[in-house]
């Protein structure tokens, strides 16, 4: 299922004017505070009526100002995790989680246990929201939206109140949702790591307009995509798990190049996506030896983009795909890098943290 959206709306001074097509998978809305991310999500949920536009899930038109269609929010079958938890204060955690299930098409009761377990909610079920910590509340809100069996999941910074450990538990679940359920997800996040890991499509907003949009792999490989500064650049490549080694490493095949990563959960043969943070990539003209870094891929420089600062983003075409490396300009000249020059990209095994590995 995919979401197509076109809308124009004005808030006095500020305004929105954008249109996009979110294919199946997870589409991230990215952008500075006040860019209009929440407003877009609200329009999809039917909580903001745009001045003009059209919103559809495949054939199902949710809103069309031209035809006068405006489906009420409860008929849209969206699961919405709000920027703040918005729990029902008069219901227990269990009551909150169960609220949407009454309207869910399929009453999948095994989901309840699975989701409460994943979110660590089991010990809280009989509490009231007033007696929960901030993170606990947000976890309940996520569970509540998931359990309403939505056709699209809208998540507005759902994980920002959570600690890393909890995030790491929830992220694989979101991946599974994205991949298995065929559930399109519209996701607002400020975290490049989350975005890189999860995004199928990335949409960057600025002052209510789209400044960049495309499949995550492309957007991330584009040296021009420097979310919140070049610092966070990093290419996405795809690889397949070749084998799991006994010493706790997994060997991946990325277009013929071998990459070693900490043991992955997925079975051999699985296609994965890796984000290689540009600032973690070291380039060398000669093949280095005696290094602790296990992953070394040969390639050829395809572009060098110098920023305002002392850095440069070097795109290297390798067997594994295009890799971005962020170097100082001093290093660029010291290594005499230029378009067409051959070089080796060095990646630490452990730089590719779980946060940077996403399935498919």
């Amino acid at each position, binding site marked *: 299922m995919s979401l197509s959206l076109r809308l124009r709306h004005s808030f006095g001074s500020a305004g929105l004017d954008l249109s996009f097509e979110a294919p199946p998978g997870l589409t991230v809305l990215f952008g500075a505070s006040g860019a209009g991310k929440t407003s877009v999500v609200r329009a999809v949920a039917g*909580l903001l009526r745009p001045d003009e536009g059209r919103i559809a899930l495949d054939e199902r038109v949710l809103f069309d100002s031209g035809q006068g269609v405006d489906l*009420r*929010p409860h008929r849209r079958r969206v699961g919405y995790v709000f920027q703040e938890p918005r729990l*029902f204060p008069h219901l227990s955690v269990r009551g909150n989680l169960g609220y*949407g299930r009454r309207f869910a098409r399929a009453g999948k009761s095994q989901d309840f246990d699975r989701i409460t377990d994943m979110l660590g909610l089991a010990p809280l079920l009989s509490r009231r*929201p007033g007696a*929960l910590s901030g993170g606990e509340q947000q976890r309940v809100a996520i569970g509540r*939206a998931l359990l309403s069996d939505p056709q699209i999941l809208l998540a507005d910074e759902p994980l920002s109140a959570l600690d890393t450990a909890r995030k790491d538990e929830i992220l694989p679940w979101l991946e599974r949702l994205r991949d298995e359920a065929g559930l399109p997800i519209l996701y607002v996040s400020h975290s490049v790591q989350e975005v890189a890991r999860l995004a199928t499509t990335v949409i960057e907003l600025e002052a209510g307009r789209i400044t960049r949009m495309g499949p995550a792999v492309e957007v991330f490989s584009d040296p021009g995509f420097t979310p919140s500064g070049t610092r966070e650049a990093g290419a996405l490549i795809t690889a397949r798990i070749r084998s799991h080694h006994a010493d706790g490493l997994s060997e991946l095949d990325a277009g013929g190049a071998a990459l070693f990563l900490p043991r992955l959960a997925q079975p051999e043969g699985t296609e994965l996506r890796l984000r290689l943070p540009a600032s973690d990539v070291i380039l060398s003209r000669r093949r280095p030896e005696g290094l602790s870094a296990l992953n070394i891929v040969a390639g050829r420089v395809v572009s060098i983009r110098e920023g305002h600062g002392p850095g440069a983003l070097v795109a290297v075409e390798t067997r594994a795909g295009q890799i971005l490396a962020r170097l100082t300009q001093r290093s660029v000249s010291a290594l005499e890098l230029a378009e067409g020059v051959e070089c080796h990209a060095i990646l630490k095994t452990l730089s590719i943290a779980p946060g940077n590995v996403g399935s498919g």
Partner: protein
Amino acid sequence: MDWLGPEEWQAVRLSLRVAFWAMLASLPPGVLCAYALARWRFPGRQLLNLLVHLPLVLPPVVTGYLLLITLGRRAPLGSFLEGLGITFAFHWTGAALAAAIMGFPLLVRAIRLSLEAVDPKLEEAAATLGAPPVWRFLTVTLPLILPGLLAGAVLSFAKAMGEFGATITFVSNIPGETRTLPSAIYAFLQVPGGEASALRLVALSVILAMSALALSELLAHRIARRVRGA
């Protein structure tokens, strides 16, 4: 309690019955009116608002008089309803109706204030979870306005226990049928030397209303504690 004669007991029972039904019967229309006034914009909204407040503005005798000439047995509406088996005139149901109408503005205001304080964000959340408006109302809005509903109900009940002008004008003061405590008190006050008896009944009605009040406070406290989390 042998300080109460059988007629007075009758008045007590009748007052309680009248007040209870007045309160209960005005809850659904009260919630509806409050909701309409708080949430909807429609032509005639101001008129509805005025109508709801009317019994407050009018001297009770006028309200009773208006009821009498619209719902009396000789009045077109009254006789039509009587044909359907619904009698208000000179019947305890009429006393309940008068009391309900006199308490209606209080009930509606209380509920409306609570409604206006309900965070619409929670209703939005319920909507995105698939709850249609009525269900949303029943499962989110209604529980959240319970304190207001309770306050409104207790105001309505208390007013019904004290209502006199409209009642006696509309349904008279017939022992066992429409002679409520306030009507009985009124009759005592009409004759010299009746003060003592009147004050006895006043004390009684204060005790009854106090119990209702205490009960409502207790309930409200429970609700508040539940919502704040425990």
